[in-house]
């Protein structure tokens, strides 16, 4: 009977993000699962469709400048040249030392299976669901990072952290995960806690979420039992923290601190990629944030950087040609950025399809020649020892893994 009840609750909670199986922190001390090894994975979702052809420019192809006369493609790129054919966008120049030491790589001409309708929101849903295009992303019940946790031996509720305020569907699902924003706090008197638990008792969503919130806030030292809580002065101080909490370096720093403790997996989002107009300005800013995130992770992870893989993925790429307003519209193939000491960097992975019109997808977008999921699956294989069958059926159902690209150092 108890089992049946537990199971039912388990299923009821299956779709909510951050539904950890942690028991009430009032009843039992927080228990930490044994961490699944020392390797760390950070997933950064670039929301809004990063222009892969601008972030990692195929400067060796003269068509690039022809297609994009107004996007600054002909600027001097000696400082960010990668391999004689590709160059990083100048906003990523500070990542060049990582490239040179083999801690930065790119997978180019990649995409999810999403095609043709070019909707950000459907594109992101499919990216996070990690399914094939035959499954409606919005209908998917869980995300691929959560499904990986479901098969990862030794994973506990503090193994994976979704960071920030925006929903991270790639981490939602049956496996317990933690979810928090760097500015979060929870201050209540012991009596108020008991009463709150009582009030939430019959509402599974509020109950489970509040238990998670209490457990996380406590374990991070962000909870007090101050029965006076926040004064109006504290509320003003909280605004400052709230304003900074979305910054790339603050998100990355929070991630690094978790990864220096029990966590092995972290995910957060960076926005600002939807550069329909005046792209040069917009993407410089967005790439600067991505650069900050990667460098913050490197500096704050210390020696653990060597065991870390960072993957930055986006829902799709943008048009090969600039549009009429010095920007680019929604496209298909794009780029994925990989960093970390665990990565075999200093190279651009993938089959380059070329930019001739006939080689473009729908004569408009960079042709995707590989699936982002395949690269991520190989990373999981290398970092966590997950076998190909599990990866192709459970984590990314229906994915045919391409040959091992050898992403890991």
């Amino acid at each position, binding site marked *: 009977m108890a089992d049946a009840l537990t199971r039912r609750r388990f299923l009821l909670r299956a779709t909510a993000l951050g539904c950890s199986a942690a028991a009430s922190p009032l009843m039992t001390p927080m228990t930490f699962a044994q961490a699944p090894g020392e390797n760390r994975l950070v997933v950064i979702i670039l929301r*809004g469709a990063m222009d892969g052809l601008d972030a990692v420019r195929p400067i060796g192809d003269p068509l690039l400048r022809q297609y994009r006369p107004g996007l600054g493609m002909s600027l001097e790129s000696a400082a960010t040249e990668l391999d004689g054919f590709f160059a990083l966008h100048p906003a990523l120049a500070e990542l060049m030392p990582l490239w040179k030491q083999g801690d930065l790589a790119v997978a180019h001409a990649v995409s999810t299976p999403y095609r043709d309708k070019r909707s950000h929101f459907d594109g992101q849903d499919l990216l996070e669901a990690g399914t094939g295009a035959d499954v409606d992303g919005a209908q998917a019940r869980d995300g691929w990072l959560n499904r990986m946790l479901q098969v990862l031996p030794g994973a506990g509720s503090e193994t994976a952290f979704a960071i920030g305020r925006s929903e991270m569907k790639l981490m939602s699902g049956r496996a317990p995960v933690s979810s928090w924003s760097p500015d979060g706090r929870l201050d209540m008197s012991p009596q108020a806690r008991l009463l709150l638990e009582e009030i939430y008792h019959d509402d599974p969503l509020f109950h489970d979420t509040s238990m998670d919130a209490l457990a996380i*806030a406590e374990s991070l030292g962000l909870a007090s039992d101050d029965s006076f809580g926040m004064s109006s002065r504290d509320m003003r101080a909280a605004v400052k923290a709230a304003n900074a909490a979305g910054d790339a370096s603050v998100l990355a720093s929070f991630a690094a601190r978790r990864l220096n403790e029990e966590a092995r997996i972290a995910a957060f989002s960076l926005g600002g990629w939807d550069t329909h107009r005046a792209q040069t300005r917009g993407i410089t800013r967005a790439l600067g944030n991505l650069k900050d995130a990667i460098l913050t992770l490197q500096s704050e992870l210390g020696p653990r950087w060597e065991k870390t893989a960072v993957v930055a993925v986006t829902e799709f790429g943008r048009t090969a040609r600039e549009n009429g*307003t010095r920007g680019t519209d929604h496209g298909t193939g794009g780029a994925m950025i990989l960093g970390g000491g665990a990565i075999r960097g200093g190279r651009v992975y993938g089959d380059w399809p070329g930019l001739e019109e006939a080689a473009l997808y729908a004569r408009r977008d960079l042709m995707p020649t590989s699936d982002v999921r395949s690269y991520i699956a190989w990373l999981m294989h290398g970092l966590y020892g997950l076998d190909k069958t599990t990866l192709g059926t459970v984590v990314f159902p229906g994915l045919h893994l391409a040959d091992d690209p050898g992403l890991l150092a």
Partner: protein
Amino acid sequence: MAFTPDIAAIRFGEGLAPEIAAPASVEGVLDQLRGADLAAKEFPITPLSDLYGTFAKVSTLQKAARRGRKGPDAQELSKAYKQARRELNLHLEGALAPLLSRSITTEQPFRERLTRFWADHFTVVGKNNLTRNAVPSYIEETIRPHITGRFSDLLKAVMTSPMMLDYLDQNSSVGPNSRGAKGRRGLNENLARELLELHTLGVGGAYAQGDVRQLAELLTGMTTEISRGFVFRPKIVEPGAETVLGQSYGGGPPAVEDVMAFLDDVALHPDTVRHISRKLAVHFTSDRPDEGMIADMADAYAATGGELMAVYEAMLHHPFAWSSFGQKVKQPVDFIVSAMRVLEVPPTSLRQFNRSKRRAYVTGPMTAMGQQWFRPAGPDGWPEEAEAWVTPQGLAARIQWAMAAPSAIFRSLPDPRSFVVAALGDVADEKVTFAARAAETRREGVGLILASPAFQRR
């Protein structure tokens, strides 16, 4: 569950208020939309077109400051520009007080809810230093007057609003073969795509990339000017007819009527009818709404040519509107205004809030709850699903606000034992009532009631 006045006030209003009667019937809810818009009159917000003069002035000062930045008057010019910009921003940020006051005191709360629904459906974000705080003015001028009219009129108002044309880049889109393109400028697909995907047909609708492209061509010429608002520019209109969704538009001399003809048609497209009906149902009743109710709403839409009153009527008269009570979780803005409504925060206090108090009590906490004031991440607006809001970090922020804000705003708080009745009426449950009695302080008692699922849900 069936209709009760308290449920009506909570689901289709801004929540209960000690001194304001809840609607006595379903018709009572609809009656709120039938008379004059009282709250807008009592707490005015500057409509966008009244700002064009100020926009022009600030922009002229900015240009002068930029031109003269190396001249002898550089400091003076820069000061004049910054002063004018500051005045504009202070004025626009001040819209927070009337916005909250309307929700707190109105006897027509369904109007406020519908205004927010449509403002979200037609999300814009102010992208430049003039418009960054002007979204309430856009809503006042473009959305609010149309929420009880025809969908096509609302759609046309939005598509000719400077805020939308700027937000989704239509302003700079040029017909590549037009005279104005001079072989250099061209199309931007942004508005065309979102118009089909978000505003009308829905992403599952019957359109393809070719329709997006053709619509982008059809929309050329729809631009704005800072001092005048909407301007149709024949010179940049793509020559020739365009075929969108199987129908041909234009072909003669450039005319804004061609775009309007398309907007009239797409407003009545079966996919639009369905998409709009479903979206309203999701927002007001359930993340998984009853298909029968959506069908009734869609029928009413189709039968009246998109009269929104008829669609609301169909929704409210369907039993699911009441039986699904409690399935929605309030968004942060709804949570905060409903708490302020039952706490009776006086409009005079709100007017006196300075910037730091506005941020500490309202906009900062809303950001922590996941809803940055008038700055959603994309044109799809705010999420609907309960799970998107009730996250550990989001819920923690709600609890923090519930425990801290009331006592920061008021010197004395109501007795939790009476507050539980005022806040929850006939939806109060035993556990909340018990907690109201058992709390150690008024502050925590009030906080627990506001943090309870009974108050957070609707």
